């Protein structure tokens, strides 16, 4: 068996600038960090069965990969020419579609594992590109490239999306003190609802022309945001998120709704500096930065407020930043 893994991520600023409609005209930038929540993919060679099995939230057993409902596993197997005798399962600590980039983490871990299965080792960049190709070219998701790179590389990075399609990965070199201080200022609040990233992004993609100037400002805000983190000025970072939130709300109608707006306002009223909805929006996780002495009050108010707004399963998720990217955890078929 092969077990591969890839981290989920928190994206702080620049989301939406990783779409080609934008970055072919102006360099897109995203600042994000891998977090200590990992997707694991297990790949089993089953020579005495003729089937292809995919086990995730559904369990599928088919005689040819083209019959699979899971688009990512289907296209990856077809692309690699793996037609039978394989079982693939995925495991994660958090449900899919929470805004933590988990679908791309899935694709990254899947490609890392499947390439190892056919005897090829991929480095970080190769696995990021393989996952982008899978999701964008083969599955034809209308998504950008930030999540695949965040999951493949791990760590805290500024990703720059160049007009020629290349991606620069520049690490944000936070020492352990600043990194851990940021962790203690950060509140990741899971709203317990899910949404399909594609539908929001399709609208956002259609609006790219209209929103070009807004996206340009978001891209340009990334280096500034990076500087606030390097100076451990989390108040300014939070205030920038507040500005970014206002800007992003203009991009697509579904990104926010009244319930989330109310929770955001509640957090601010209890002293949070700012924050954002993670991912393409609509729902998912609310991420806030708050002073240490009002952190507990913000979490409590969000917990109460979430119940009122109908987010029954809402809760805080403790989170740490990690350096680890896509990995082969184990490979019993040889090194």
């Amino acid at each position: 068996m092969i077990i591969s893994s890839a981290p989920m991520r928190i994206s702080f600023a620049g989301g939406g600038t990783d779409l080609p409609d934008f970055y072919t005209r102006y360099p897109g930038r995203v600042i994000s960090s891998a977090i200590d929540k990992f997707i694991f993919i297990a790949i089993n060679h089953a020579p005495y069965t003729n089937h292809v099995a995919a086990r995730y939230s559904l369990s599928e057993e088919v005689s040819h990969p083209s019959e699979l409902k899971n688009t990512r596993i289907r296209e990856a197997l077809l692309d690699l020419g793996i037609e039978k005798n394989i079982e693939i399962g995925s495991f994660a600590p958090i449900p899919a579609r929470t805004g933590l980039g988990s679908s791309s983490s899935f694709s990254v871990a899947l490609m890392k594992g499947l390439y190892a299965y056919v005897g090829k080792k991929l480095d970080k960049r190769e696995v990021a590109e393989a996952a982008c190709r899978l999701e964008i070219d083969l599955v034809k998701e209308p998504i950008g490239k930030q999540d695949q790179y965040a999951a493949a590389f791990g760590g805290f990075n500024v990703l720059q999306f160049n007009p020629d399609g290349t991606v620069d990965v520049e690490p944000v070199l936070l020492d352990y003190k600043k990194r851990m201080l940021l962790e203690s200022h950060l509140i990741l609040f899971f709203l317990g609802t899910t949404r399909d990233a594609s539908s929001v992004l399709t609208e956002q993609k259609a609006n790219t022309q209209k929103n070009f100037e807004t996206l340009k400002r978001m891209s340009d805000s990334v280096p500034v945001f990076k500087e606030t983190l390097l100076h451990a000025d989390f108040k300014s970072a939070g205030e920038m998120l507040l500005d970014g939130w206002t800007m992003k709300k203009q991009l697509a109608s579904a990104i926010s709704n009244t319930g989330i707006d109310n929770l955001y306002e509640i957090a601010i009223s209890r002293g949070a500096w700012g924050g954002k909805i993670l991912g393409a929006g609509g729902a998912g996780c609310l991420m806030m930065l708050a002073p240490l002495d009002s952190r507990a009050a913000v979490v409590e108010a969000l917990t109460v407020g979430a119940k009122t707004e109908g987010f029954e399963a809402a809760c805080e998720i403790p989170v740490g930043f990690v350096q680890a990217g896509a990995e082969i955890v184990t490979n019993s078929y040889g090194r």
Partner: protein
Amino acid sequence: MEQFIQEFSQKAITLLNNLPKVEIAKAMNILQAAFERDGRIYVIGNGGSLALATHWVADFNKTVFSHNLDEHQRRFQAIRLPTTEEELTAWANDVGYDMVFSGPLRNYIQDSDVLIAISSSGNSENIIRAVELAHEHKVPVIGISGFDGGRLNPLSDAKILIQTTQGEYELVEGIHAIVLHIFTKYFKEYFDHVLLLRRQRDKLHATAH
């Protein structure tokens, strides 16, 4: 004599003032990632660089955690290769000196690992062979070199080059020791800090109940 000492120390000070800080920071991120995935860190070098490698392994496996040895369940797994003189001489005598690092490394290497290669010239063939093996496995390489960096520096993921004129072994090896001690000191303080936060949290938790 004092002038000789002054000139040497002045050169060392200049090199210290120009340490490749970004590359050293990248190297520490690579080590952090290896720790997170419980990977192993192999260290190789010839002559004085081998002595640096051995010293650093002792520091990283023990000194980093020395304040609280029992409280850290997971620790670094730093390994100097080859691990025994028997292996070193067997590879050198039977196969060739070029294989003394990559030969033993092939026995150990897994995808989750890291290689630290120390070479003042950056051109030692046995070092380059091991770096190439690491590349085959997509294992990150921290290259610690001197002079003009030789072949090692461009082949490394973290390019720690202490740039001097050719042959300044004493300066280069001295600064290399300091770079390696920066790794040790950083992680020692990091793990102390992790424990401090954990204790504060436990105390808060105890008070809350």
